[in-house]
């Protein structure tokens, strides 16, 4: 069994766009997580979701890794983009799409939203 922290690191480093949120896209449990998810959808981001609620260690280890105290947290290719406020702001200004094009390539596109379970 891999440690929680290693699993989180793997998601952050290996997924194009990682969203750590409360709940899942099917059942969002927090307003800020909803805002981040919707902003990423508007930008057409290929999102991989981790629900932090099943185990408090996920949130603890994630914040230890990122130095960011709140949920949600969005990463693009391993780099912290921010929480709901920043992602919304960057989406509204077009910078989020520009970042996605720069990091993922001009033809990046939304795939089916994936949910990864960390245990």
């Amino acid at each position, binding site marked *: 069994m891999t440690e929680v922290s290693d699993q989180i690191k793997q998601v952050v480093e290996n997924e194009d766009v990682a969203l750590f949120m409360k709940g899942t896209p099917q059942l969002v449990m*927090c307003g*800020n997580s909803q805002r981040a998810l919707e902003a990423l959808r508007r930008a057409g981001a290929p999102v991989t979701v981790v629900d932090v609620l099943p185990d408090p260690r996920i949130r603890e280890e994630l914040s230890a890794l990122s*130095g960011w*105290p709140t949920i949600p947290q969005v990463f693009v290719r391993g780099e912290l983009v*921010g929480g709901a*406020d*920043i992602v919304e*702001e*960057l989406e509204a200004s077009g910078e989020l799409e520009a970042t996605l094009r720069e990091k993922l390539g001009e033809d990046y596109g939304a795939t089916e939203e994936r949910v990864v379970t960390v245990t």
Partner: protein
Amino acid sequence: MTERLEQLLREAFPGDEVAVEDRTGGGDHFQVTVTSARFDGLSLVEQHRLVYDALATPLADGTIHELRIKTKGSQ
């Protein structure tokens, strides 16, 4: 609680414009807005980190259930 957050922000950003709004009236969902020259040239992540640092205690002890942050530079 709004006053406590305002005080923490004023201590961290002396002389700058800070505003705290209790979004729901319940004392745990807040919108904070900070305008400071300290944000000039910083990324949004770095700007928000400064606000999180100022509010580290109420964030860690669960006083703040939800926080929305708006930062503005001096320009």
